[in-house]
Structure formats: C-alpha cells, structure tokens
C-alpha cells in the first residue's frame, strides 16, 4: 500500500491533507520538521513526500538535501507545498530535486490530491535526482 509522508508544521494543514488522502485510500504519516521527517523516512521509506519549506528547527531544503545524499531515497517523488511564492524559492527547490511545487493558497487541495495520484498510480514518473 502506498504511504505518504506529510512534512508540515501547521496542524490544520496536516489534518486537511490527511483527511483527503485517507479518503483516497492512502496511508498517511506526518512529521512537523525536517529532522523528524528524515528520521521517519529512515525508519520507513514512504512512496511519496509532501514537503513544506518553512518549518522550525530544520526546513524543507534540509530534507531535499538529505534525500539527494541517499541513493535509496533519491527516487521518492517530492511535492513541495509552500506559501513561499518567489521565483527564486521555486527554482531552488526544483534544483534541489523537488518534482513539483505548489503555492498552497493558490491551489485547491483537490489539485494536490490529483498530483499525488498522478505519481503514485504511475501516470507520472518522478525525475531522478542527480
């Protein structure tokens, strides 16, 4: 069964994502900062990661960096969900290996769920990280 790791520090966003993904039949786990996320990935490799950027302690870029280092993690699809809308941020995240970037307030949650399905049902392949 596909499992999804939500990395997000805002409780209400975790809940919204969790409810929708569970309704689609996915298994969902969450982490509230970068360090916790890396620890959880280490214990159990998820099928896909939904990743926030700005979080306390260690941010989303840290997670992207860790994923890149580990050959086993390289191919996990990562969709960044952030409210940082600057071009430079988006570019940096994509360069660091994110597969997609959503500015949260500008996309309905349904779009995010559809994107998750695209990756997990093989309609879209995650790009390989260098």
């Amino acid at each position: 069964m596909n499992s999804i790791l939500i990395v997000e520090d805002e409780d209400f966003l975790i809940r919204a994502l969790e409810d929708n993904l569970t309704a689609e039949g996915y298994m969902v786990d969450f982490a509230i900062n970068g360090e916790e996320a890396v620890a959880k990935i280490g214990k159990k490799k998820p099928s896909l990661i939904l990743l926030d950027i700005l979080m306390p302690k260690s941010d989303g870029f840290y997670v992207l960096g860790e994923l890149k280092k580990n050959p086993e993690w390289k191919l996990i699809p990562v969709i960044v969900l952030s409210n940082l809308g600057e071009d430079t941020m988006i570019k940096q995240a994509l360069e660091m290996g994110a597969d997609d970037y959503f500015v949260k307030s500008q996309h309905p949650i349904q779009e995010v769920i559809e994107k998750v399905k695209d990756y997990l049902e093989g309609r879209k392949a995650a790009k390989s990280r260098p």
Partner: protein
Amino acid sequence: MADLATKKFYIFNQAICKMLGYSRKEFEKLGVRDIHPEKDLPYVLGQFERQSKGAIGENILAENMPVKRKDGSIFYTNISASRVKLAKRMYLMGIFRDITEQRRINKNLEDAKVAARNVLEDLQVEKKSLAYAKAKDEALLASIGDGVVATNQAGKIVLMNKAAGRMLGWSAKQVTGRLFVEVWQVLDEKGNLVPEAKRPVTLALTGKITTTTTTTTTGSGYFYTRKDGTKFPVALTVTPVLVGNKIIGAIDVFRDITREKEIEKLRLDFLSLASHQLRTPLSGTKWLIETIQRGIIGELNPKQKEYINSIYQINERMIRLVSDMLDVLMLESGVTAIKKQEVSVSKIFEELLLMMEPASRDKGIMLCNLLKNHKSFFLETDLQILRSILECFVSNAINYSQSGQKVFLDAKEESDLVVFSVKDSGIGIPKEEQKSIFERFYRASNAKALRPTGTGLGLNIAKMLAEKINAKVSFESQKNKGSIFYLCIPKRSSRGVKEKEKIKN
C-alpha cells in the same frame, strides 16, 4: 628784491616780469602784497617781519608757494629768499622758480602711483577672492559625502576627495598620478573581477559608453576593493569629462551602499516572511473548507452548504488581495527580475485561451482569437510579465461582460511595436471615472456594483508590469457598450541588447 620795510620791489629781472605777465614798468610799481594770494599774505609778511627783526643770514625756503599773475591766475613756485643789505637799507631777495611743470609731473607721477596702488589693491582683492573660491571648491569637494575620483585621459588619477580616500583606504597623496586600475579593482555582483576594458572609467575614457550609473536597486551592482583587499558594494556614476567634444578625463562619483543593501535585504526578508505568514492561515481555511465541501467528513444541509460556499468565496477574496498586494510590494521593491526571451504571439494566445477557458465557460462567455490566420510573429520580452498583463485584461473582460457576450483577443505589428488588444462588450467604464482606472484600489462604480469582490489592484499591477518591460497600457471605453484594452510593447527591448547578443554569438 623787495624793500624789507615797504615790501616794494626794488631790483628785479626780466624773468620774473615774464613769469608774472607784467612789463618792467608795471612791475616797478608793485610790491610783495601784489603777487601773493590773499590767504598766503600773513605767511609772506610774517617772513618779512622776522627778517627785519634781525635774524641774520637765515635762508628762507618756501616750497609750493602760490603766486598770482597779472591776470589773477595762480601758479606755484619754490622761493628761496635771503636778506641783503644794500646802501644801508635792508632788502629781501627772492629767487622764484616756476614749478608748474614739476608739479604736473609730480601730479602725474602721483596719479600713476595711486592708479598702480589701486590696481594692486584690486589685484590683491581678486587674488584673495580667487584663493577663497579655490579653497571653497576644495572644501566643497573634500566635504562631499560621496567619493569623487577624477582621472585624466590616460587614466591617471588627478584628484581624489576625502570620502573616496576613506572608502578605498588610500590617501590622495598616495594615488595622485597613478593609474586608476592600479589603485582599486572592480568586481561584479558575483564577485568576479571586471576586466580593465569593461570598467566604467575605461568605458567613459574611450567614449564607448557616455555615462554608467548603478543604484541600490539596479540588478548589475559593482563592488570596489579597498587598499586592504576587502570589498564593498557601490552605487556609482561615471562620466567622461568633455572639453568641446574631446574627452580629457573621467569622473567617478560613488558611495558605499553596504547599509542600503542590508536594508534592502531586510525588506525582502520581511516581504517574504509576510507573504508566508499571511498565506498560511488562508491556505488552511481554504483546504479545510474544500475538505468539508467534498463531503469526506459528512454531508451538510443546504443552508450549511450555502454558508460554507460564502465563507469559501470570502477566503478566496482575501487570498487574492494578499497575493495582489504582495505583488505590488515586490514590483515596487524592484525584486522582480526581467527575463527576456523570444515570445511567439500565437503561442501566448493559445496558452491564454486555454487558461482562461474555465472562467469564460462558467460565465457563458466566448473567447475569440482574432489573430490573423493565427499566423505567428515574435517579440523579445519577459514572457511571465506579458502573460500576467494579458491575463489581467482577459479576466477583466470576462468579469465585466454578461453571459452570451464575446471577448476578442488580437495582436498587430506596428513598425517596431506589437499592439495587443482585448475587447469586450461589457459594462464599460463611465467617462468621468476613466482617468482613475489605473490607480491603486480604484474600482469604477459600475464594476463595484456588478462584482463586489474585486481588489482594485489588477490594472494597477498591469500598468506597473508594463512599465517594467517598457510597454504601455491604454484603453477606450464607453459605459454599457464595452471596453478595449491595449498593450503596446516594443518588439526588441533595446538596440543595446541586440548588439550584446551578437557579440555573444
């Protein structure tokens, strides 16, 4: 010779007669009183008195004595007189020397002296004021807060003011006469050394570029190096010094903008943080409402559904407002970098139609592409900015039209311009409100009535964006008939860019 007692003349020569304009006959009858002006008589008679009282052998020398001619005119003489005893009578013998000529010469000499003195004084005053002016200029130059370095045609430093010295870590003495390239280095914003041929001063001296100006916000910033090798960011203006049409040197005026850069960074960090902090709760509300609307967590009754939909719309409006306001702030702070690229007009129309299709379908409005045979032409501009402006035009056209109406998109080439147009048959803009339509937060009265949720920022942003790419926005509109919005955009951003491209290739 005059009788000491009677003061009558006794013996005299021809010369004195001639000098005074008398004949000998006439002169015989005259005395001392007749040849001196009234005011000098007391002195003259006083001398006679003293001589008669027996101060013997004393020679009188009266210089500049006025003497009266027969015709009453006055001239000046030097008289030397002495007492003479002749046949037991005492006389005073006077020798008169006409000094008119001498006086004239003296006077001329004196005048010349005075004149010379005046000239000298004037010169000294002039010299003082020149020295003052020079000191003032030097003080001015020295006290200018910006650094000023001037070079001659050969690139040797002829002047460096205090501020420049302080910033660069050199004293004027150490660098005067040295080539500017030996004194400090220029680095670009990435920290790479700018080669001599491309340094602003070189460009000015060779006449390749007349004036180089960089400011705090312009993209291409420069760094200068100090004597100790450290660097600091500068805003500069470099200008050639021209005499006639000839370049005789260059002036570099610069200042340290470390502080401004820091403030700019703080401002950007703040904007970034604000945008994040404002969006986070809004996106939470959005997604939670969407989750309720999907019915995952149970069905709502119709009234609850209606309210939830309203709350959703309000939240969407808030999201739009925050996003638009942040766009404005970003635009104003100059962060939005311009990325020029070849843009196909037909392709951008296709994308636009595809993107706006859901919105137009919802409202029952047909989008029509009038581009001739969909034939394409190209222009060089920032695709993202162009797209944003056209999106704004099209979404306004859709928002302010009624179901069943059409919106027309077109583009035409006009010499070196491309003119985009978006035409609708909607509510139009009332004439008296047309002048305000690009103002921030301004919304026409009929637009507010039809669609209360607009932010009043769309056209304001479109206008600012257009300025960024040297384009112009304009419109024609009639109330209840519709509007047509234009975007005039240069095909090539500037000749300079084109040439740069050539060099690259």
